[in-house]
């Protein structure tokens, strides 16, 4: 048991002269719920994109379940077991809620064209089951037939998570899931994420809402200007002077 679950080693990415992510290293164990915070422009989303393969890293390595995944295409990384959501809510608006969720299962099952002709058995049945299970988990089963564009904003947030869950990922990356939600909704979301975690899901959570992160994460990583400046329990992070300075400085900038 030498290999950690997810291992980020000295990961870096520069855009032109700007180092968006600069030598970040972190290990995450199976079953952890890690919060990733930092001021605007700290490189949180870039780090996510580096892990999920949307942006190729300029330096460093990412290992997942003992396999090196940096340099792989996003869909390969997804199939390796990393599911993600997007900061700016990217559902498939012209598809029904169920069809949205089915896509996650479809990707994980790697279906081919022939599956369209095998009828109700085999892979299609597994996809249906996974999809419905994910919808039930986020309590959207009653909206299954609704067009995704027609459901409320809050429900769309859950829909996006359900779609990632239908992949049955080993690691779930949530990019600001609470953005745009009111306090009650945020609370419900926090409970939901906590329950996912309790069920054994490994989660990395990027969030602006400190309260949310502090309330459910036992470990928090803080980024500032592309560098990791703190990594520890909520209490440790809160007490860290570097974090305070980053946030205050960030406000000025």
């Amino acid at each position, binding site marked *: 048991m030498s290999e950690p679950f997810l291992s980020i080693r000295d990961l870096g990415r520069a855009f032109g002269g700007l180092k968006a992510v600069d030598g970040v290293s972190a290990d995450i164990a199976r079953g952890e719920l890690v919060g990733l915070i930092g001021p605007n422009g700290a490189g949180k989303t870039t780090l996510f994109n580096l892990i*999920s393969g*949307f942006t190729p890293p300029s330096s460093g390595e990412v290992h997942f379940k003992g396999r090196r995944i940096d340099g792989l*295409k*996003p*869909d390969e990384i*997804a*199939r390796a077991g990393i*599911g*993600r959501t*997007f900061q700016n809510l*990217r559902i*498939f*608006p*012209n*598809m*029904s809620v*169920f*069809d949205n969720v*089915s*896509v*996650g*299962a*479809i*990707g*994980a099952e*790697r*279906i*081919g*064209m022939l*599956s*369209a*002709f095998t009828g*109700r058995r085999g*892979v*299609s*049945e597994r*996809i*249906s*089951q*996974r*999809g*419905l*299970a*994910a919808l*039930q*988990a986020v309590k959207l089963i009653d909206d*299954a*037939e609704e067009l995704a564009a027609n459901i409320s904003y809050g429900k769309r947030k859950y829909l996006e998570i359900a*779609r*990632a*869950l239908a*992949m*049955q*990922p080993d690691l779930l990356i949530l990019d600001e899931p609470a953005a745009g939600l009111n306090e009650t909704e945020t609370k419900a979301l926090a409970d939901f994420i906590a329950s*996912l975690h309790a*069920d*054994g*899901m490994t989660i990395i959570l990027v969030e602006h809402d400190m309260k949310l992160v502090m309330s459910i994460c036992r470990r928090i990583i803080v980024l500032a200007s592309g560098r990791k400046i703190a990594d520890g329990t909520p209490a440790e992070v809160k007490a860290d002077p570097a974090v305070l300075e980053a946030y205050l400085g960030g406000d000025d900038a």
Partner: protein
Amino acid sequence: MSVSDPGRGRSLLWTALLLIVVFAVVPALLASAGRSYLYQVANLIMIFSLLSVSMHLVTGVAGLLQLGHAAFYGVGAYCAALLATHFKLSIGITLPAAGLAAGLVAFLVALPTMRLVSIYFAVATLGIGQMLYVVMLNWVPVTKGPNGILLFGGLQFLGFDLSKPAPAYFFVATVVSVSIYVLHRLSHSYYGNALRALREDDQCADAMGIDTARLKLESFTVSGFFAGVAGALWAHTAGYISPADFNFNVSILILSMVVLGGLGSLPGAIVGAVLLIGLPELLREFKAGDYRNIIIGLVLFGAILFLPKGLIGETSALDLVRRQFGRGRSIPGHEGGVGWK
């Protein structure tokens, strides 16, 4: 599965109705009218239905704007015509060969262009379509260039002569029905959902583990295959083909059919074909003369303006899952927890 399952019942009903219309009602009407002209129009409508439904897979479902579909139709037609004239092969062989040839060409041209997105992909298909057209027009030793190819021998299948209007109709109807059924299954399945995801947001589909490049390649190839099949049908039923039948305007005509019926809707693509082939002929009957094409343009414009979702909106793959479990029923073996631990 019980008969009371509404989704399955309804879809069976529709299929049965359609089959009755195509194989009984229309032929009966045609036979009673006794006009080979109407058979010709019916065949043309079916061939173009297949073209528009095959484009629907790429443009409507997978969301890749295709501006060169007629070229694959042409590749199929030329393949069939060449095999029929040089090797005296009947449509039993030329039809699949035409499909494979067009599919292969589609695959080859798709390989380098699959990386392209949105309008860049569209203009690449336009360029490829034009290139293939230029080849058909100018590769005189093989395609006979502008001379076109004359197919003697009519429509022979398994030793039967199907050249007369009614047998030809049934042959075309059978091939087109089977092809459209295959395309229907593809678009109306989880595979189709993967294509839709590609249309809606290809990056996001990537994040779901969907191999978007492979999907693009596959859908483009399949679409090319069926366009090629349509080409073989045209070559054998018309008896003479020339490059003019496969130029850019034909691609635009097929695209108009797909959009008119409602992007993403397979029945819509068929309705679009019926309208855009049928309407000009109908106007001919009414002696609309010179105003024919203006009327078609206005109808197209009106349809887009007043029916933003097309004549028939997009259908969902949901009745598939309804069929599998029935709505509102609990999922077998599922206790409310999550199954991804």
